[in-house]
């Protein structure tokens, strides 16, 4: 097991190197000069603009810029052009907020989507099944920013139960988590339903039924547990998508988060922030995937053997 993990860890290094190179090249494709974008409207002198450019190393060839950036990443000294604050520090301050939102919304979506999908599969083409697929289509079709504004109107303005905006407390988390969960409910419901229907056609289910097992037992002990495994895989893979979706939610609810940090920095062409935070997200994503793999390996010895 230890050796398996060590190999997996070593494999991350070339991946991360590639990501860092791509990220540092991508920035050249986004049009606009960051220093000019910031200062042209303030009438800063060309000398000031030039000195900032020099300090950032923008007048250096790309390999030098890349080396400087990687050195900065390792020492934590990469600073934003706009705010002049250390990027890694800001990222770490905002990360808990985004993770909180992601975990809460996945939890909520799973709590609603898994039972719904299972129930629908238990009685395919029943009225319940139609209701479930209708409900999941609805949650998928509602634009998230619209749902956010409606929830704010009802629960914050009219009922005054929850704050409309901001972050920090669990009360602030409720509305954003509901909105972000709504998009995932359909995915989870449909995955669970499809896999359960598939499992229900398996030989061992027929065997279970033939042994005289009650339908309840067949459904929940045999079919459901097996259908859950692919669902968990989908949830894990969905994590990257969650981050991008969270950008909209974070903006509408004025909630702090790394999604907003990245988008704001792209718009301002604050490229040290873009580079550093995209690289950090990649580290995070790879880390989560590795953990998932490690869990599989721990649970299922076949996975270890096959790699």
């Amino acid at each position: 097991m230890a050796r398996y993990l060590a190999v997996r860890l070593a494999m991350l290094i070339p991946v991360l190197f590639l990501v860092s190179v791509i990220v540092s090249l991508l920035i050249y494709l986004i049009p606009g000069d960051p220093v000019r974008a910031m200062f042209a409207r303030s009438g800063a002198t060309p000398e000031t603009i030039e000195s900032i450019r020099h300090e950032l190393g923008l007048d250096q060839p790309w390999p030098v810029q890349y080396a400087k950036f990687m050195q900065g990443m390792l020492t934590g000294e990469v600073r934003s052009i706009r705010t002049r604050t250390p990027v890694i520090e800001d990222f770490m301050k905002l990360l808990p907020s985004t993770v909180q939102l992601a975990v809460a919304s996945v939890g909520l979506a799973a709590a609603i989507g898994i039972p719904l999908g299972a129930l629908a599969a238990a009685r395919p083409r029943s009225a319940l099944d139609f209701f479930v697929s209708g409900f999941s289509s609805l949650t998928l079709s509602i634009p998230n920013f619209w749902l956010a504004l409606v929830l704010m109107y009802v629960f914050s303005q009219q009922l005054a139960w929850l704050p409309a905006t901001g972050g920090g407390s669990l009360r602030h988390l409720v509305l954003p988590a509901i909105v972000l969960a709504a998009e995932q409910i359909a995915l989870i419901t449909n995955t669970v339903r499809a896999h359960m229907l598939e499992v229900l056609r398996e030989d061992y289910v027929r065997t279970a039924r033939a042994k005289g097992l009650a339908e309840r037992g067949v459904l929940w002990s045999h079919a459901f547990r097996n259908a859950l495994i692919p669902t968990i895989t989908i949830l894990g893979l969905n994590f990257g998508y969650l981050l991008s979706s969270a950008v909209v939610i974070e903006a509408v609810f004025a909630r702090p988060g790394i999604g907003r940090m990245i988008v704001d920095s792209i718009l301002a062409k604050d490229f040290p922030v873009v580079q550093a935070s995209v690289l950090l997200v990649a580290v995070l994503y790879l880390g989560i995937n590795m953990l998932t793999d490690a869990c599989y390996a721990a649970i299922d010895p076949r996975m270890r053997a096959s790699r």
Partner: protein
Amino acid sequence: MSRYIGSILVLVLMVTSAIGLGSRTALAQDGAGGEITVGLDFEPDNLDPHVTPYAVSHTVMMNIFDPLIWRDKEGAFQPGLAESWEVSEDGTEFTFQLRDGVTFHDGTPFDAEAVKFNLDRIADPATQSGFASTLLGPYDHTEVVDPLTVKVVFSSPAPGFLDGASQAFMGMVSPAAVEKFGADFGRNPVGTGFMKFVEWAPQDHITLARNDDYNWGAPFFGHTGPALLDGITFRFYGEGATRLAALQAGDADIVDNVLNSDLIVLESDPAFKVLPANAIGLPIAILLNTNAAPTNDVAVRQALNFALDRQQMVDIAFFGASRPANGPLAPGTPYYSSEVESMYPFDLARAAAVLDEGGWTLNENGIREKDGQQLVLEWSVTPWDAPWAELAQAQFGQIGAVIQINQMADAAALEAMIADEINLYSTAWASSDPVVLSTVFHSSNIDGGSALTKYADPELDALLETGESSIDEAARTEAYAGAQKLIMDQALIVPVALWPQNVAIAADVNGVERDFRNYLWLYDAAVGE
């Protein structure tokens, strides 16, 4: 299986009980004035007044820092940290008598040495000043005459210096704190203002608390001594709809830059007050690139000015929350010339005549054409001007001009204009001094990327230089009037509308005012009576 469902249920119960659904915490009101939350449309970049170029930073900084002198609501100069001042005959020396007994938030004294430190710091290239160095102008050095007298010397006349000195961008920072925090001063600001900096949570809030020692407020304020409010929290709501929701839900007591389309909702609701205002300085205008065809043709530029129905623009695209703009300065800006008002009335016949004269004829598709070139104009539109750009596109279409609109982020649009890839770029530039005309039109700023019309004309440059540096009032007035007329004669811009900057306030918050430059005055503000 029931194990799983059971644990999920327990989790849901735990979460809901921790959140305490249905119990909204009451607003804490400890002191007489209470605490308020102000919703801004951007997060400041930093709060180092000498570094940041952003108006949104100014809004926060004017609570933390005091200027040497103030401008009251009418624009008159009033004593601030300087009790009095004298300007030499030739306009190059400014001598300030400083107020005694003023201390920074860190306890260090404010004196002549501190003023010298501040002005030297702004002028030092190492500070990388975004805006303050522009305001400081042709600074040479500062002499400490005695602990409370300081003489600021310029290398050439600096009639704009007093205006610059009255802005928070030139606010007095604590030399000891600059020494202590270095590059991080912008996140740990220390001044002499009526509020002290407490905390900055990125993307969430900035908190300030009352400075109990404050007794050097300007004489024209509503009271003296410390501020009435116990504290101010600034929050950041980038989305207009979110700002409105935050105000309506009580998350914020004041929100800045309310969308024009939301004003109707707020004005009819007794729970809120609206403080409407239009920015002074360069109004919302479309800058025309004189380096890129076909806007290098003055006939095209003039025709666009005749073709814009500004009243319709204000009524429809700005929801009536603005007024038509006719020149490069908004009415109310010092040295505004009303001569420009009659230059370009909405007149499609005149627009057509100007184009006909310039050789632009209508082709069979209804598009103007000259030497085989169709009248096609490229316009990079940012989210800021998108709401009205399409109406302008339709209006310009009436004279046979095709406007191609590309939506992009501001940094990209700016770069496209600098590279002469596009013809039109819209902007607005709030300023309490006509020096903004030099920034946007003087040919020496073409390389820096702020003179985006790229128009280079010694006559215009000379007028702007006279306006900027003459100490003779009559000569300044004449030069600036001449510059405004020349800019419109050459039709370097299409003025569109005044820049609406509307603030909405919860009805129970009193004493909030807007200063000469439309920034929020919170010194006299209080919750309740």
